[in-house]
């Protein structure tokens, strides 16, 4: 193999590799890098809903959510100040920063993000209303591994 060919192959490999990394990381929140969940986040937040990956909202949205836990989407989710502070810092540190998640969605709802709406546009309206689904916030109704942060399309089963 000539030296020139090897260099060319290395450069091509690098370009393809970077392109893939970009597709995986920069697309949207559903491909957000998985970070190990803070135990307090798991314990406090995932008692009522799936532990939404922190990368699915920008830091400004998380700050607003954490600053008003006593009025949390219709329920009182207030925490003691120490727990709230720790969770808030962790969410900010791991918040979404890549292009489509940088936008703060209406009402700071993941489900109102443009990328979320687009990703779910093929889900029939009736499916959302099924009693086992009920709400777009119920990720685990279709994403069986949502509690492990896995939102891969291959593992989606829309209940009939």
């Amino acid at each position, binding site marked *: 193999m000539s030296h020139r060919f090897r260099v060319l192959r290395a450069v091509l490999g690098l370009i393809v590799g970077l392109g893939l990394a970009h597709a995986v990381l920069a697309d949207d929140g559903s491909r957000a890098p998985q970070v190990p969940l803070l135990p307090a986040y798991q314990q406090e937040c995932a008692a*009522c*809903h799936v532990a939404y990956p922190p990368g699915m909202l920008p830091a400004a949205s998380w700050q607003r959510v954490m600053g008003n836990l006593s009025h949390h989407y219709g329920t*009182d989710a207030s925490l*003691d100040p120490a727990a709230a502070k720790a969770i808030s810092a962790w969410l900010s540190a791991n918040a979404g920063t890549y292009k489509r998640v940088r936008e703060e969605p209406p009402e700071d709802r993941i489900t109102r993000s443009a990328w979320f709406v687009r990703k779910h546009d093929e889900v029939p309206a009736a499916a959302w209303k099924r009693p*086992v*689904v*009920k709400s777009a*916030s119920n990720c*685990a109704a279709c994403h069986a591994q949502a509690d492990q942060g896995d939102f891969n399309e291959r593992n989606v089963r829309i209940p009939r």
Partner: protein
Amino acid sequence: MNPSNIIRFVAATLIATLATVAHSATPAELLAGFSAQAGAAPSPDRGQQLFTTRQGREWSCASCHGVVPTQTGKHATTGKPIGAMAPAFNPERFTDAAKTEKWFRRNCNDVVGRECSAAEKADVLSWLLTLKP
């Protein structure tokens, strides 16, 4: 490990253990505490009434926990499963005073629009303790 580190380690372990001991409780102890605060005997019937009926707002306790909370309930908005509330069916329930207070505070706010009184907490817990397999 040098001696000062060992002392620090032992102290930290002791504090952690004490903190756990301070929090852990039995449902009967928590009930006794609420009753003593209320200064009256609890009523399981009143507890059931409070738990299963709406208090002028959208949700009752039963909306998420079920009318007979001996089975897994379901969050009224998110659909997330919620473990049974009756201690005989879920040994984790009412074994941590701080956790118990946190959930009463939040959920009474959602259901009743204010915090529950010690008497109301005693009533609900006394009813939950009547539910047996």
